[in-house]
């Protein structure tokens, strides 16, 4: 029983954290795949993309050797199109809707093609958007995550001067801090943020936390409008005895550390339990295994049918050798000498369909215990309830309430992304940023133009 770092060799770390979705090796490979695309009309893939990327168009542009045009098609709908090509759960979005699925054929590798074009755009620093001349309007954005950056980019294109206040020392939000390192590298995230900022007109002030270094009142006074893309905070507490033993970790900070530090510096247990079955739980479990944990067990209180992660994600965990216990809810953490020693779980069963249409897990009264030395909590994240309450903003359990114009109850203050929805995909946050920007432009009596 121990939690130690530096379990693997440098080569093993590199191998374990290498890009899980390698790109097309060359143009021919990309064109072979691009030519498979049927170029659907009113395409199901586009309709399944939260940012409405014109997928058939950008793929056709790869096949006609118009890569610049292809990148423009992608990025004009989704400025984080490069990152999304690596982190989107495409199996439940564009690729899941590809008509080839209906022929029992492999869907088009949309993400991989998207990556092909956007990577070329970033590598060559193609400037695909021209900023309108400054119109003197100033907007403050809180949070340099996907929602904030997307909002900033649309505003800047339309001539607004944008200042982003970011509490961390790097931009990108959960893209930079909250996703498995084998999906996106810190270097990539930094490059993507810089590429977005290269349009000009956007300044990011780092290490500036709302409520601490900067106050809402100041923002309202100094800017024509404010957009809150503050995301969500730490992992939800389990609310069971023993949660303060050494070895109980929050998935977000665990993943953050992996993204922030050298792999060999991250301590990991021999036997790790991960609580939850969302994307973050998977990212935590797989990375625990890849850091050298001997045994990793995912514990989830419902069954596979109700799991929030996709089949593809679950398969990654299984292939990494993670074990899974369905219908198990943590009941107590037992420790020895102040350190985690056992996770006691209740065996659950599912109710008949409840009022939400989702089956509720019910305690069967039976318990079992797992010998563990580390527990990673990934049962959802908590919104910044205190912060929004403090600023008298309407919210539901901390999630900001907005109207159809993305406006909060405070005039001139808009919001979108995880701070509003409680935590969805990067691509959803990008769309929220675009929609928020559109409402802000209307609020500022500016014409919205995305050409």
């Amino acid at each position, binding site marked *: 029983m121990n939690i130690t770092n530096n379990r693997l060799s440098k080569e093993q770390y590199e191998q374990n954290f290498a890009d899980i979705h390698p790109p097309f090796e060359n143009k021919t490979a990309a*064109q*072979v795949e*691009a*030519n498979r695309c*049927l*170029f*659907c*009309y*009113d*395409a*199901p*893939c586009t*309709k*399944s993309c939260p940012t409405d990327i014109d997928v058939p168009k950008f793929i056709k542009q790869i*096949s006609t050797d118009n890569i610049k045009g292809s990148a423009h098609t992608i990025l004009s709908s989704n400025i984080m199109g490069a990152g999304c090509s690596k982190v989107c759960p495409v199996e439940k979005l564009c690729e899941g*809707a590809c*008509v*080839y699925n*209906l*022929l029992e054929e492999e869907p088009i590798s949309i993400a991989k093609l998207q990556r092909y074009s956007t990577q070329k755009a970033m590598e060559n620093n193609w400037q695909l958007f021209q900023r309108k001349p400054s119109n003197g309007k100033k907007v403050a954005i809180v949070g340099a995550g996907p929602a904030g950056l997307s909002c900033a980019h649309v505003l800047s294109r339309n001539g607004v001067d944008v200042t982003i206040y970011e509490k961390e020392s790097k931009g990108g939000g959960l893209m930079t801090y909250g996703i498995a390192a084998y999906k996106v590298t810190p270097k990539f995230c930094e490059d993507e943020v810089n590429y977005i900022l290269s349009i000009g007109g956007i300044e990011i002030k780092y290490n500036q936390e709302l409520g601490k270094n900067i106050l809402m009142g100041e923002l309202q006074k100094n800017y024509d409008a404010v957009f809150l893309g503050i995301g969500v905070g730490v992992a939800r507490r389990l609310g069971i005895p023993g949660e303060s033993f050494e070895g109980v970790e929050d998935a977000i900070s665990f993943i953050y550390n992996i993204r922030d530090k050298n792999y060999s510096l991250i301590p990991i247990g021999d036997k790790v339990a991960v609580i939850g079955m969302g994307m973050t739980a998977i990212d935590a479990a797989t990375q625990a295994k890849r850091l050298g944990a001997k045994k990793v067990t995912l514990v989830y209180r419902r069954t596979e049918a109700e799991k929030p992660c996709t089949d593809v994600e679950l398969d990654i965990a299984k292939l990494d050798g993670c074990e899974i216990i369905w219908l198990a809810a943590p009941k107590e953490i037992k420790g020895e000498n102040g350190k985690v020693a056992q996770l006691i779980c209740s065996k659950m069963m599912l109710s008949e369909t409840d009022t939400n249409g989702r089956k509720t897990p019910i305690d069967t009264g039976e318990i079992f215990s797992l010998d563990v030395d580390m527990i990673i909590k990934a049962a959802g994240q908590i919104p910044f309830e205190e912060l929004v309450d403090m600023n008298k903003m309407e919210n539901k359990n901390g999630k900001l309430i907005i109207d159809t114009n993305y406006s909060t109850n405070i005039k001139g203050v808009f919001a979108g992304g995880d701070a509003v929805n409680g935590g969805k995909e990067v691509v959803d946050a990008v769309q929220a940023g675009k929609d928020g920007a559109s409402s802000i432009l209307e609020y500022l009596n500016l014409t919205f133009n995305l050409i």
Partner: protein
Amino acid sequence: MADISSNFLGIKSPNPFWLASAPPTDKKYNVLRAFEAGWGGVVWKTLGSQVKNVSSRYSAVDFNGSRLMGFNNIELISDRPLDINLKEIEECIKLFPDRAMIVSLMADNDKKSWQELIKKVEDTGAHGLELNFGCPHGMTERGMGASVGQDPEIACMVVEWVMETATIPVITKLTPNVHSVVPTGRSVVKAGTHALSLINTIQSVTGIDLDTLVPNPNVGGKSVFGGYCGPAVKPIALKMLTTIAQDELTKKVPISGIGGIGTWKDAVEFMLLGASNVQVCTAAMKHGFRIIEDMCEGMNNWMDEKGFKTIDDFIGKSVENITHWEDLDINFHVIANINQDKCIHCGLCYIACEDASHQSINLDFGKPYNKYTIKDEECVGCNLCKLVCPVEDCITMEVHRKGEEYVNWKDWQDKGLPLNDH
């Protein structure tokens, strides 16, 4: 098992597939490999006064990632010494006596040259001659190749020279670089040619390098019109073949079909439109001689399925099915039907019909899958939706006659029937 052996003007071959006169047939090495692979015969690359070729020589048109949909060359006739060619031809005949050996010829523009060349070739034991009146590049600048084939009088004169001397069957190869192949066809048949072959290549520019702005193929910064062939020319070749197969005079001689043939299906189509056998080049240049296996097996299986015992049972069967527009039945009417169980909701039928045809498809919006159905009363039966649909048998054209009786355009006018019925 059907019998696919062929007898063309008494020249026998185990199958109706010959390699056309071209680089694959320019020397013993290739020809032996072709015979070993199973080809029924070859037309040896054109002999004449020795020439000098340039580099580069070929270019192509790709389509949606598939190479060589169309192929283009600027190579001249054989650039090897005549005596070596003749010696190798003789050796190949001895090694494979059951295969057809035809020699393509393009002599200088005088009777003596043609007749001397023919005598030399006949001495090899070759089974037949093919007169190259079709090559559209290079040789034409010297008044040869297509320059002969484009002028029925000159073509007639040359064939007459040939027929004075030739003791083996003579096939005249026609150029497609004319408004119609029939005048030259008729002229050379009158002059006594035993058979015709068509088509030779079509003059073309396949494309331009968008960096150098030099068209392909690039010969030191310049290009020249080349001869186009490959799958892209097949429909043009089939049309020209049909005109020869339907003409009262030219249909009296056997035809060797050429132009974009790469599969047994292509070959069957040429033969249904009147070709007694076929010649192949581009497909072999792309894939090698091994394609012959499937060509034989495929044709054999199709014949078994259709009950044809020999190739003569189906040669020319479709010729009468191509008629004049004025003879078509106006009361025949088809309406598209979309099989909803097979539809994958790609919308290609809808957008094609909406933008380019008769707005005959309904779109019921769905997320993510729309539903597409035919507006029966609007559909003119153009086939476009069926042609663009990526799913086999998803869209079918169903017959809904407008009237029971056959009414052609002439009858329609005579009866004063309405024109604006759609």
